[in-house]
């Protein structure tokens, strides 16, 4: 089965080629959507086969590399188109193809009747192929192709409604910000390659070879530089501070795109990349601290913004940024498996929520369209009381919300609790631990609050939609609700594969599963870790209880403000207008970036155009032309047009040249 790993990215590629080249002619939506979904589903089946086979092997044999074809061989440099299958990439391909298939299926219903239906599925398949290349690549260059490919698809899909200016702008913003990150990724790649090559004559970009040679890396120093560069790449792709502002804008794309790319898969690429190179990152304590701090800061920062947004998808977008912050926090405190665990559970519940919001928007859109109203179908202030008309959507959404809030026994509880516990108890960051934990806990509280605010505003209370069209609201078709139900189930039970040892009901499958991948990193970490403080089980139980309690507090606040005492939020905003406005406007980060980077760049560009290009470059070019013209203006009088003048010149030339040789 391992030998067939190349099939996994191939199927979506075939789907992309068919839909991309012939989709316009096929026209039949069922065929186009069917091809797209079938292709990714076949990848899923192959992935399942690989997972099954891997489970059957002893842990130390669970690494397999497959060279598809030699790609670039130049001197010392060697990069093959090759795939690496190990427990980490196995988890990732399962998530990508599994969630991907569900979202493809969902898209058939959601995108029904849209213009460019084939285009959507072609891009979606291309995206899946790139993402699979990213997670399967056995060297950094193949990973980079995937890395760029998903960025491109993200751009194409955010700008799917390209006739809308806001969508085009959002696409450009996402692309440019990703490019900033990619630049970091490349510099990191070069640094690592150069260091290994020049110091140890190991010219490689292959993960396995780097891993084998990683004991040569120093602690800190060049590794800090390289890993910080890689981390910059990760912040771009995974929407962390400082490069997070593109993700909320990316909600301009169709909702399935937000679910697949901007929640479940692409944005987790940064987390995956750190996991893949955990043995390099752990070598730099400084980078680990930066990762943890950025993660925690992003978690709380995005969570606060999420509390004041009214657009249902924007709330989810900030929630995604915040949850990604949790993942990076996990990576930064050395709990790599917990980060991957959260990545997985997050993929389930966040995809479910996005698809649920898509279902709501779909329904709202149809109702409003029917009544010829121009209200915003995504604005939660127009919703309310939808649980009665859309029971399946409501239940799945509610389950996912419980999961993200961290309520036992839903999946989010296990992963988030593990992250918080590791933030508190990890041996790397000393006194910083308590701050990291505190930040994470408060962010978790905010998470519970804004998610339940969303649920209450959308599904509870009075229906605030225009009464004329109320009767047109209805539950979505099966093709939409089936993925919701599957994801809802996964969001509920997905956490059991990573149950903490403390509970003891089930062994912690995922940690053991990922152990071979992160073993080396933990070994390196142990060399500089603080002497392991012993934390009592009571403390762990206590903190676990505390995190649930925090979530419940958040839920209660939301319940009070948005169900019981509905006037309270308005009073709150009146009391603290400045705070409200700051949060509502996302802490003015966009404006700050405009001021700091965009406007200076524009001014610089303007200068280069008006100053440098027009005066210097054009000046030189025109100047040369003018000089030539001036000289030729003088010399053209030599061209008298009279034959005897030309004959004279010729004869003179002959005489002079002959004379030179004769009298020489």
């Amino acid at each position, binding site marked *: 089965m391992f030998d067939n790993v190349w099939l996994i990215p191939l199927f979506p590629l075939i789907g992309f080629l068919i839909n991309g080249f012939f989709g316009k002619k096929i026209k039949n939506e069922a065929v186009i959507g069917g091809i797209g979904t079938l292709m990714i589903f076949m990848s899923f089946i192959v992935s399942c086969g690989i997972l099954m086979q891997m489970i059957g092997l002893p842990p130390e044999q669970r690494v397999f590399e497959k060279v598809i074809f030699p790609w670039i061989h130049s001197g010392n440099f060697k990069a093959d188109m090759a795939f690496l299958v190990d427990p980490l990439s196995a988890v990732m391909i399962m998530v990508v193809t599994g969630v991907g298939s569900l979202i493809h299926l969902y898209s058939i219903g959601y995108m029904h009747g849209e213009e460019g239906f084939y285009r959507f599925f072609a891009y979606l398949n291309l995206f899946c192929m790139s993402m699979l290349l990213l997670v399967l690549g056995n060297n950094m260059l193949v990973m980079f192709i995937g890395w760029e490919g998903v960025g491109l698809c993200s751009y194409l899909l955010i700008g799917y409604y390209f006739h809308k200016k806001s969508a085009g702008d959002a696409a450009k913003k996402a692309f440019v910000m990703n490019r900033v990150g990619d630049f970091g990724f490349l510099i990191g790649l070069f640094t690592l390659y150069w260091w290994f090559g020049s110091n140890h004559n190991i010219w490689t970009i292959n993960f396995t070879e780097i891993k084998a040679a990683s004991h040569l890396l120093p602690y800190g120093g060049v590794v800090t530089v390289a890993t910080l560069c890689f981390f910059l790449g990760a912040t771009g792709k995974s929407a962390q501070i400082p490069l997070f502002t593109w993700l909320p804008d990316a909600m301009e794309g169709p909702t399935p795109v937000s679910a697949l790319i901007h929640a479940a898969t692409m944005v987790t690429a940064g987390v995956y990349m750190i996991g893949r190179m955990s043995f390099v990152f752990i070598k730099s304590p400084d980078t680990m601290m930066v990762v943890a701090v950025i993660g925690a800061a992003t978690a709380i920062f995005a969570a606060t913004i999420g509390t004041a947004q009214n657009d249902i998808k924007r709330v989810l977008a900030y929630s995604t940024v915040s949850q990604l912050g949790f993942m990076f926090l996990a990576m930064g405190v050395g709990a790599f498996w917990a980060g991957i665990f959260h990545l997985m559970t997050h993929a389930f519940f966040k995809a479910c929520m996005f698809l649920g919001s898509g279902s709501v928007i779909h329904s709202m859109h149809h109702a409003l369209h029917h009544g010829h109203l121009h209200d915003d179908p995504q604005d939660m202030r127009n919703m309310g009381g939808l649980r009665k008309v859309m029971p399946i959507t409501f239940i799945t959404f509610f389950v996912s919300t419980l999961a993200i809030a961290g309520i036992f026994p839903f999946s989010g509880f296990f992963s988030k609790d593990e992250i918080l516990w590791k933030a508190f108890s990890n041996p790397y960051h000393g006194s910083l631990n308590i701050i990291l934990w505190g930040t994470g806990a408060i962010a978790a509280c905010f998470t519970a609050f804004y998610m339940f605010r969303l649920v209450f505003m959308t599904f509870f209370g009075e229906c605030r939609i225009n009464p004329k069209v109320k009767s047109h609201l209805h539950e979505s078709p099966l093709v939409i609700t089936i993925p919701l139900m599957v994801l809802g189930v996964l969001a509920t039970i997905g956490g059991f594969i990573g149950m903490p040892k403390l509970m003891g009901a089930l062994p912690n499958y995922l940690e053991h599963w990922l152990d071979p991948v992160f073993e080396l990193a933990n070994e390196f970490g142990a060399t500089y870790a603080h002497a392991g403080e012993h934390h009592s089980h009571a403390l762990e139980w206590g903190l676990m209880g505390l995190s649930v309690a925090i979530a419940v507090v958040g839920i209660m606040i939301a319940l009070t403000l948005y169900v019981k005492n509905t006037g309270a939020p308005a009073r709150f905003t009146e009391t603290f207008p400045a705070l409200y406005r700051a949060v509502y406007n996302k802490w003015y980060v966009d404006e700050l970036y405009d001021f700091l980077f965009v406007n200076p760049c524009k001014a610089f560009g303007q200068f280069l155009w008006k100053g440098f290009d027009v005066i210097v470059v054009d000046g030189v070019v025109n100047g040369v032309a003018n000089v030539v013209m001036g000289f030729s203006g003088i010399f*053209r009088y030599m*061209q008298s047009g*009279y034959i005897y003048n030309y004959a004279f010149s010729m004869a003179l030339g002959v005489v002079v040249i002959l004379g030179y040789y004769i009298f020489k």
Partner: protein
Amino acid sequence: MENLTGYLVVSAILFAIGTIGVLTRKNAIVIFMCIELMLNAVNLTFVAFSRHLGHFDGQIFVLFIMVVAAAEAAVGLALMIAFYKNKESIDVDNVDMMKW
């Protein structure tokens, strides 16, 4: 032959006279005749050397030059007639269309 130098000097003089004619006259036909004069000066050199060195190569060259001169005469005079049709003159002063 002992008198080679004499022939070559005469040839040089004829050639120089032809050159002066080409450069100074303005009647196109006279210029044409001066060119023929220069060609003939070269022919004389060829024949003189041919005789002196005992080869016939030079004389065969002269025959070829005569062929070229004949062709040149045909085309050149046709050109002059065409030119005259346009300009009512064959003064090279009137041929100044390549002027700046």
